[in-house]
């Protein structure tokens, strides 16, 4: 991989900017938690800094304030960001609901929602999955009844990431029981502060501390939603969802994967195998790291190619399914490697929060802290946005023209 002179200059600019926008003070706070947890405030402050710089929305067209990165710049930015541990932009507003609003929303809806998203004035979450529907979006049961001037929403959403922080939720709701399953679904924006909306945490197997859970149940009980919050036509929610699913899958995995692999190599120089050799001198361990590194490299090539296609104005939609499937498999393989390298010091459980003064107390070496929790957390990535099996079906049908 070699970068042009202009790209190298950009890289220097990003590094210099990050030194201020992601300052030592935040990095230290992040390091205090084994899991690298950040508070809502840290996320918002970071995204506002990005917005001020004009780098918040890399996928948006320039007319709406997008960053207009080249694919290479995009890639470099991700690389540098991952290097200092700064988080990716929360996708729910910026890369999920916003493209749908741009594509299917009215001008009024665009004016109303897009600037707040770009500047992180509101926090969004996604209301797709329901208990009992799993990855099968067509069998949704949350219903929105047409009451003339408003919809009346009743139902439950699950697997809702960071709903406890959210100001708004975009939902798929059933607006008709009568037509074919997929056709009775609409795409609705709901203010989380509306009476009748309740958020309850789901504690996943990595056991995050209370208030810092990653996923939630969201209950709707006779929630009144104005009609102007409907995106697109009634019954066309499935079209919005498919469009959005394609975006959700388009993020680049390789920069983050490369960062984590570098950490594992660093662990390998310290941790020992049973013979007292360091792991980086252990042929079996080395072979596994090399193997994953080769696959990450293949991933990177493919991602760059897809980014290139995107830059050339092509709709990459379904092809990005390929990336998600491979990317999640690699994420899981890498956390597994970290787990094994850490040995039993991966075991201690960190329940610290990003709150001031809530420092965690390391039991083993720094690099082993939270490794088991990361591992368990990563098990679930393969069911985000449809399980890998469903992804493969999408692949077959849309890219390969089969099915």
């Amino acid at each position: 991989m070699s970068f042009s002179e202009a790209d190298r200059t950009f890289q220097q600019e990003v590094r210099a900017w990050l030194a201020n926008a992601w300052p030592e003070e935040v990095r230290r706070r992040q390091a205090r938690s084994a899991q690298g947890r950040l508070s809502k405030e840290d996320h918002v402050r970071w995204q506002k800094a990005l917005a001020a710089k004009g780098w918040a929305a890399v996928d948006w067209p320039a007319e709406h304030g997008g960053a207009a990165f080249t694919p290479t710049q995009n890639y470099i930015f991700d690389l540098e960001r991952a290097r200092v541990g700064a988080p990716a932009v929360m996708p729910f507003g910026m890369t999920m609901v916003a493209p749908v609003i741009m594509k299917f929303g009215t001008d009024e809806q665009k004016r109303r929602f897009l600037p707040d998203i770009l500047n992180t004035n509101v926090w969004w979450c996604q209301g797709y999955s329901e208990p009992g529907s799993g990855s099968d979006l067509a069998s949704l049961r949350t219903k929105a009844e047409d009451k003339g001037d408003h919809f009346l929403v009743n139902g439950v959403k699950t697997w809702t990431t960071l709903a406890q922080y959210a100001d708004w939720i975009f939902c798929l709701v059933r607006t008709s029981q009568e037509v074919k399953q997929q056709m009775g679904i609409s795409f609705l924006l709901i203010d989380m502060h509306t009476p009748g909306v309740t958020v309850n945490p789901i504690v996943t197997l990595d056991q995050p501390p209370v208030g810092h859970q990653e996923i939630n149940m969201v209950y709707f009980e006779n929630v009144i939603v104005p009609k102007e919050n409907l995106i697109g036509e009634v019954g066309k929610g499935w079209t919005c969802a498919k469009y959005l699913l394609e975006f959700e899958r388009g993020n680049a995995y390789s920069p983050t994967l490369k960062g984590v692999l570098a950490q594992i190599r660093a662990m390998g120089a310290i941790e020992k195998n049973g013979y007292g050799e360091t792991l980086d001198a252990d042929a079996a361990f080395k072979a596994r790291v090399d193997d994953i590194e080769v696959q990450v490299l293949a991933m990177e090539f493919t991602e760059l190619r897809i980014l290139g296609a995107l830059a050339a104005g092509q709709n990459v939609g379904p092809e990005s399914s390929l990336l998600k499937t491979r990317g999640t498999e690699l994420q899981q393989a890498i956390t597994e490697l970290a787990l094994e390298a850490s040995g039993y010091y991966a075991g201690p459980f960190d329940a610290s929060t990003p709150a001031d003064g809530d420092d965690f107390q390391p039991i083993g070496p720094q690099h082993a802290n939270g490794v088991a929790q990361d591992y368990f957390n990563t098990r679930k990535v393969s069911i985000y946005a449809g399980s890998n099996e469903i992804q493969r079906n999408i692949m077959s049908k849309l890219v390969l023209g089969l099915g």
Partner: protein
Amino acid sequence: MDDPFVASQLAADELTALGRDLVGASGTLPYRLDDEKRLMRDTFRRFADEVVRPRAAAIHRTDSMIPDEIIEGLRRLGCFGLSIPERFGGLKPDHSEDSLGMILATEELSRGSLGAAGSLITRPEIVARALLEGGTAAQQARWLPALAAGDPFCAVSVTEPGTGSDVAAVSLRAKRVDGGWRLNGGKTWCTFAGKAGVILVLARTDPDVRPLHKGLSLFLVEKPSTDADEFVHHSNGGTVTGRAIATIGYRGMHSFEMFYDEFFVPDTHLVGEQEGEGRGFYFTMRGFSGGRLQTAARACGLMQAAFDSAVAYAQNRTVFDRKVADYPLTQAKFARMGMYIAACRCFSHAVAQEMDKGAGQIEASLVKLLACHLAEWVSREAMQIHGGIGYAEETDVSRLYVDARVLSIFEGAEETLALRVIGKALLESN
């Protein structure tokens, strides 16, 4: 070619019918036991179902200590005396081993909960074996009946922070003083140390002798039992402190970091007294000799629990208008899971027979590796069958998966090494 058509096709048809006939066999495959063993298994199975399982989720989710209902019940069943000879009040025959009984109990209890039941037998077994190997008659007479009664509970403390993989590096120092010894130094991962009234501690009594492991001795450290996460105990001007390490799985017993500061232990509490000085390494080895097979049994119990939970879920849950259990892919998963469980169980039973005859050491390592490895696989499959909800702490299967993985972290941290050493032993035995 042996008529592949009939051998597989007809057989498959036949199996469907057989499967129906076998309703009620509880999914437990080859398991032919004599009446005594069957009674034993059924007793522990009932206890696991009625007492352990209903409490397992709460113990895990609140990271709490095993409640008295479980501990008292196991005391009544004589569980803590399974490895202690009858003459000392235990359940083991005086002059023979009973590995099969031990693994049957372990497997059933682990099916209830790995952390809150299945691993409770381990510690008295280690201490009893060490005392039987190296304790004086007086020490055996004093401690074995007490341990068999679960009064006090015991713990074992060998691992130290930073010792890495070199046993010779155990550095907790025991210095001779008038009438006994003073201990100074740290230990870690001492499971059940809070609840225990006595801890078996490996310490260095001679820092100069070579090879290093000949400078180690075993001590019985008495302390008050406590349910707390931290404790301090004073003895004759010295102290021992303990602090529980929160872990992500395998919960119920709590594992402790320990620190000894001029802690006094009387001569009577050196295992083997004078004779035992410098022999602590061998007594420890003896103590751990049953551990690998027992770990295999724990993994088998956990697998069975994961299988059961996946079956229950698949039979109740509908996706795309069909029961999950009706999908051919689910059925194929169940067959593979059942296959591995049956293979591990048969293997561990065979190894139990070998060990009771004084052999089977390599095999014990093999069955442990296999069972830990497959427990992880089986519980992950069970979780996958649950779909997204399998990742939520509220499901049993999420706990089973975490426990299986943690078992495999703790028991398999040195897996590569173990594999190499076994491979070498197999080469040499060939």
